[in-house]
């Protein structure tokens, strides 16, 4: 009989547990995104952006005491998975959602009515062109531009000095290669390895994409047609190959190794977006005073220009029951001068809202960077970056571009052949 009892009691426990679970449901879902009582705004965002939005909410409540907020911290992948399911069903969405810049138009094209039209609260002249490009889709403004990722060249003052290279003299990528050869020959890291000029992931398209944007090219034209074998793209690929073949690149393959080149002091420069300031300070705290920032080297015979990498925007689902108040909150959070300055100072969120740049904070010197006024460089370069049309095919194009780049870097394929092949591949996939 003992066995029967055990089995029966196990069944009873399980049944009771199941009941308890269902009962939990009622209470648990009260915080759900769908409460829709007209004054609770649910926010999905990651890491520091969430903290910044929480600070903005506190300030917003001073003038809107009846508005409540629910904040859910999520990672980027998590937000995209959730978006895919919730946009298809139109249910369970938050009211305010953070999305990486390059991904906005993809979701907006796949779900044309998914995001609310923010044309009435986004004044295009007030934001960096590149950010307006990110949030434009279907002829509408579907997101509110937030932090920008203008790219400049981070460099190690100590390595440059050792090799007798003057940072101001690096005007073009050809100068960059010459300086790189000198530094590679002269300098060694604290652990005795030779110092390389810059990190490149030979299995990815990061570096090519970065200088492609600088050179005025992009994956798609304004109509969404693939243009990866344009003259600008070819010039960028040839330059990338030239730099890689010069033997001045430090290979890396993933994010951990990328941060590793900072920790191990393997490289003399990093062409990267403004958020790299935070990563460098975090991962190389003992390198204070050794870093500086200069313009991105230009293509020979061309004016210096900037590039872009990363940065996020906020979107509001059109099904949000709190649409009006959510719009008001987003506009407030992303255009209030003091909030934008705080977000930058506390969390490194570099605003794309141009009027804020007049704030004295952005012309202050940074001790970590040898007392240089580094933000002015990023502001200047950020305004030169043209608007890019990302389209819903961006992710697929990016991964295909990665294999094209690895063929060029590692298998010595001719840049023109590789890009023509990439163009044909993408056109047959996307139909344009």
């Amino acid at each position, binding site marked *: 009989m003992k066995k029967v009892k055990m*089995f029966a009691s196990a069944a009873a426990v399980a049944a009771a547990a199941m009941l308890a679970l269902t009962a939990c449901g009622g209470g648990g879902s009260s915080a759900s995104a769908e409460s829709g009582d007209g004054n609770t705004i649910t926010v999905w965002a990651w890491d*520091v952006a969430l903290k910044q939005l929480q600070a903005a909410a506190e300030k917003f409540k001073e003038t809107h005491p009846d508005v409540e907020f629910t904040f859910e911290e999520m990672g980027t992948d998590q937000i995209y998975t959730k978006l895919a399911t919730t946009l298809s069903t139109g249910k369970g969405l938050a009211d305010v959602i953070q999305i990486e810049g390059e991904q906005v138009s993809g979701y907006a094209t796949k779900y044309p009515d998914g995001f609310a039209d923010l044309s009435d609260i986004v004044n295009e002249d007030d934001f960096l062109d590149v950010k307006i490009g990110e949030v434009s889709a279907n002829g509408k403004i579907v997101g509110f531009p937030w932090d920008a990722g203008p790219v400049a060249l981070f460099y190690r003052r100590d390595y440059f000095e050792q090799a007798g290279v003057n940072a101001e003299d690096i005007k073009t990528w050809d100068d960059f290669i010459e300086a790189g050869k000198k530094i590679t020959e002269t300098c060694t890291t604290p652990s005795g390895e030779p110092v390389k000029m810059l990190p490149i992931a030979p299995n990815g398209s990061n570096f090519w994409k970065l200088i492609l944007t600088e050179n005025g090219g992009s994956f798609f034209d304004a109509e969404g047609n693939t243009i990866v074998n344009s003259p600008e793209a070819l010039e960028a690929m040839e330059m990338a190959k030239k730099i890689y073949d010069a033997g001045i690149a430090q290979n890396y393959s993933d994010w951990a190794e990328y941060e590793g080149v900072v920790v191990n002091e393997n490289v003399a420069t990093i062409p990267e977006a403004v958020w790299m300031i935070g990563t460098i300070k975090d991962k190389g705290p003992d390198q204070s005073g050794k870093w500086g920032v200069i313009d991105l080297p230009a293509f020979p015979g061309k004016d210096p220009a900037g590039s872009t990498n990363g940065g996020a925007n906020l979107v509001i689902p059109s099904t949000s029951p709190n649409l009006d108040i959510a719009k008001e909150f987003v506009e407030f959070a992303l255009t209030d001068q003091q909030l934008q300055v705080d977000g930058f100072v506390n969390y490194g969120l570099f605003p794309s809202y141009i009027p804020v740049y007049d704030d004295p904070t952005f012309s202050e010197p940074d001790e970590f960077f040898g007392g240089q006024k580094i933000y002015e460089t990023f502001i200047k370069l950020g305004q030169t970056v043209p608007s890019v049309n990302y389209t819903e095919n961006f992710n697929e194009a990016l991964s295909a571009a990665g294999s094209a780049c690895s063929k060029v870097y590692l298998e010595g394929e001719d840049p023109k052949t590789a890009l023509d092949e990439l163009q044909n591949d993408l056109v047959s996939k996307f139909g344009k």
Partner: protein
Amino acid sequence: MIKKICVYFLLILAAFLSLFPFYFMFVSGTNSNQAILAAPPRLIPGDMLAQNFSVLVEKMDIFRVAFNTLFLSVVFVLLAVILFSSAGYVLAKYEFKGKGIIFGFIMVSMMIPAQVMYVPLFQMFVSAGMTNTYAAVILPSLANAFGIFLMRQNMMNFPTALIEAARIDGYTEFQIFTHIVLPNVKPALSALVIYMFTTMWNNFMWPLIVLETKDMYNFPVALAVLDGNPTNKDFAVILLATSIATLPILFIFMVFQKQFVAGVMGGAVKE
């Protein structure tokens, strides 16, 4: 002799290759980010454990997450054992009309990829007002063809003569199941427990979709949040959290591993 040395050498090498990532994960939880990212990385325990842990606790309610994960796994395993063993028994030892079709349907459901079902499932749970509940995580996993299949295969080998003898002796059908059959398929049950426990412990995609608030997250979802910043990662804290999430499953596997292997083999050979 030489052959033996070679075999042992290869085995030790393989063990090293599979155990080293675990070792590195555990050790890195006690080191700083700088030490982890250095070349070569620090491979001996450091003194950062307390600091990493305090950062971790600040970023994620680890006790709540541990409770959620454990609760989900234990309740799921209880229900799964009852459901799958009885369903497997019926499909193995009873003859009734439509048995083949029912079993066929169950097997065919294994061919439907989970990704196809996420959107309709999510829609169902939204309509039922059950999103963000434990039940929403557990219920879909209970429709698990593999569990039923595993139990059926193991019970097929059970001698029918024994069941008939018990019937003649006056046992009820339920008593036969609990007294005669279940005690004899213990290895298979252990395999089921360990398999279902790990499945639920590691369950990521569906909880990610259906859970909405931080206080409901299980380990995989909470770890994804911890790893959420694309441009500046706190590897030490992430690896410490991963270590904490891995320990229980490692422990369970060590306790049950003999039965695990035996149970999986159970259905393999047919006499």
